């Protein structure tokens, strides 16, 4: 027995909805038509919202914006699987799922317009704030999941990150903690092929990101991230595992960022039109649309209605954004501590005077 196998593993990839709209009936999760239609509507709403935000930025009415276009299935599928009391721990490209989890759209816009009030979510919305330092949110998700377990809650912490984020030490430490303490946490990696200009292959030499789970002794699975049913099914399984105390799961959702990294980026500098075109073929919305049409659940008239409805909702969010009072300069100081120390009081007063004069 001198050269023995001490560990064996397999990483699977789950696909249910093919690009042509045909599903694998054996793997198809139990969703009723209303749910499927809701998935579609949510994905379309996300896209309209996202495209509008990009336009606002171009018009100078918005700060830097990170488009999610192309990643709608990865967010809508996870959202549908989550229970009301589950928590979302986003990175920074998760406006889709943030809104589905209850964050008002105009607050998301406010955040990217450079207003801290965008992270002052209404009470009851179980969502952590956007985290800009890449990878830094994974540990919060692990700690939140540990805390939910310690306090006997059934809820799970669903924590997002990108392919690039898996290279940060935070990812490693968070997943390792989660594994050791069987945290009630599901880690979802939206592998959208790129971290700004660095392709997935330049980020790590591993064949998949899902296999990084093996380093932590936790289950990992890859899903076609443009296949909303696969995303949903994998998330359900992972949530179930977490809820029953069996610990965290790593889900790699392979998708694609169809837009630029942010509105400050020009993806044309580092990737080919062909690559983008090839992925447009795999558009998650087209794909679900094909399925719905084949099932007779969708037609052009409904599409038009949905487009109108989505546009209206987006306008309402922009109106709400633009109706916000200007932020109060004193807020710079007001929320630094529970109680304001003397030096801040002084500084605040001097600013208030300056602004008044």
């Amino acid at each position, binding site marked *: 027995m001198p050269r023995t196998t001490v560990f064996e593993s397999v990483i699977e990839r789950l696909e249910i909805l093919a690009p042509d709209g045909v599903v694998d009936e054996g793997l198809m999760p139990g969703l009723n038509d209303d749910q499927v239609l809701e998935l579609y509507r949510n994905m379309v709403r996300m896209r309209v919202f996202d495209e509008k935000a990009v336009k606002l930025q171009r018009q100078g009415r918005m700060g830097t914006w990170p488009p999610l276009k192309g990643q709608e299935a990865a967010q809508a599928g996870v959202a549908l699987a989550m229970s009301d009391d589950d928590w979302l721990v986003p990175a920074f490209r998760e406006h889709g799922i943030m809104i589905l989890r209850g964050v008002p759209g105009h607050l998301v816009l406010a955040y990217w317009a450079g207003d801290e009030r965008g992270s002052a979510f209404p009470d009851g919305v179980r969502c952590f704030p956007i985290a800009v330092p890449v990878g830094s949110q994974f540990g919060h998700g692990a700690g939140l*999941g540990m805390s939910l377990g310690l306090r006997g809650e059934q809820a799970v912490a669903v924590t997002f990150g990108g392919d690039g984020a898996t290279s940060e030490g935070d990812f490693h430490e968070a997943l390792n903690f989660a594994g050791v303490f069987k945290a009630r946490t599901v880690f979802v990696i939206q592998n959208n092929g790129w971290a700004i200009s660095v392709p997935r292959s330049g980020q790590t030499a591993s064949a998949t990101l899902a296999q990084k789970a093996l380093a932590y002794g936790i289950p990992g699975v890859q899903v076609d991230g443009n296949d909303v049913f696969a995303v949903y099914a994998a998330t359900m399984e992972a949530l179930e595992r977490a809820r029953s105390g069996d610990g965290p799961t790593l889900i790699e959702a392979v998708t694609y960022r169809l837009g630029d990294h942010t509105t400050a980026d020009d993806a044309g500098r580092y990737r080919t039109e062909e690559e983008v075109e090839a992925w447009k073929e795999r558009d998650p919305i087209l794909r679900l649309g094909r399925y719905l049409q084949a099932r007779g659940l969708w037609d052009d008239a409904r599409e038009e209605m949905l487009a109108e409805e989505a546009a209206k909702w987006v306008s309402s969010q922009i109106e709400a954004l633009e109706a916000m009072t200007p932020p109060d300069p004193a807020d710079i100081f007001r929320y630094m501590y529970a109680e304001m120390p003397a030096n801040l009081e002084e500084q605040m007063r001097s600013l208030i005077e300056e602004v008044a004069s």
Partner: protein
Amino acid sequence: MTAQRANPSEDGEGGLRAVPTTSTAKLTIAQAVRDGLAAEMARDERVIVMGEDVGVDGGVFRATDGLIERFGPQRVIDTPLAEDGIVATAIGMAMSGLRPIAEIQFMGFVYPALNQIFAHAARMRVRTRGRFHVPMVIRMPFGGGIHAPESHSESYEALFVHTPGIKVVIPSNPHDTKGLLASAIRDEDPVVFLEPKRIYRAFREAVPTDDYTVPLGRAAVPRAGEDVSLISWGAMVRVCLDAAQELAGDGISAEVVDLRTLNPLDRDALLASVVKTGRAVIVHEAPRTAGFGAEIVALINEHALLHLEAPVQRVTGFDTVFPYARLEKHYLPTRERVVKAVRAILDF
């Protein structure tokens, strides 16, 4: 029962014997940490302790000794060896209703966690306009003088003081340790709690066994004086007291100010002392350049310049890396150096 003291300068004994109490125990600083942790854990079940070797081992300085037996491994958590992970998970816990106390084994090992402290703990409240906050304490032993290997002697308090959103607390004696720790744990914002390891077991003092707090943001004046203010924190307070003692022999009356918390800072107490004496020597272990001593000089300059009889002096570590054990005595501020600085400004 709380020991919130009205005016620190009225309290020449640093509050030690000023507090009437039913019972006391003679404790070292390390024991006061342990008792303080136990008391708060007993008082509030949301309080948990986590870190490397804090459980079964009771901490490499025994500051968490016995806690796991008493409160169980759910509340006293031996973590993997990963400081960033410790603080990141603690933040996640603090944002969701627990009150974690994370131990970093030595201050020299907090650097991997600075991202979480600077980018998240310090900012969570302001960036979410109060929606979230991080009631967390990060404890760590700091400072030199124990002949430890490299990376075990740093005094990097200035990093945290320069980071808005982080409170910085540094006790110098057992009584304050327990009382400040209670305040830190009950505080709604993140607190870095720096324990002067050189004097962890250097002496014992009577510490109330009952519940009490020493408020954050209040300096103490463990020795009153007229001629010069010796301003310091942590292990350096005793160096200043020794220097004051020696100076007294020459008829020089030195007042010792123990800042106790660097943020929030008790600026009034500090300035009151300097206005009274007209001379100040600031003593800290950290490298001089851009150390917290510089901020104190700046504050005196801004608010009490006309009261100065001589330039404020700084007696500090050098602008070098903290040396290994065989040379550390040359690095650390000593009574002699403080005395010399005082004489220099008296001769100014």
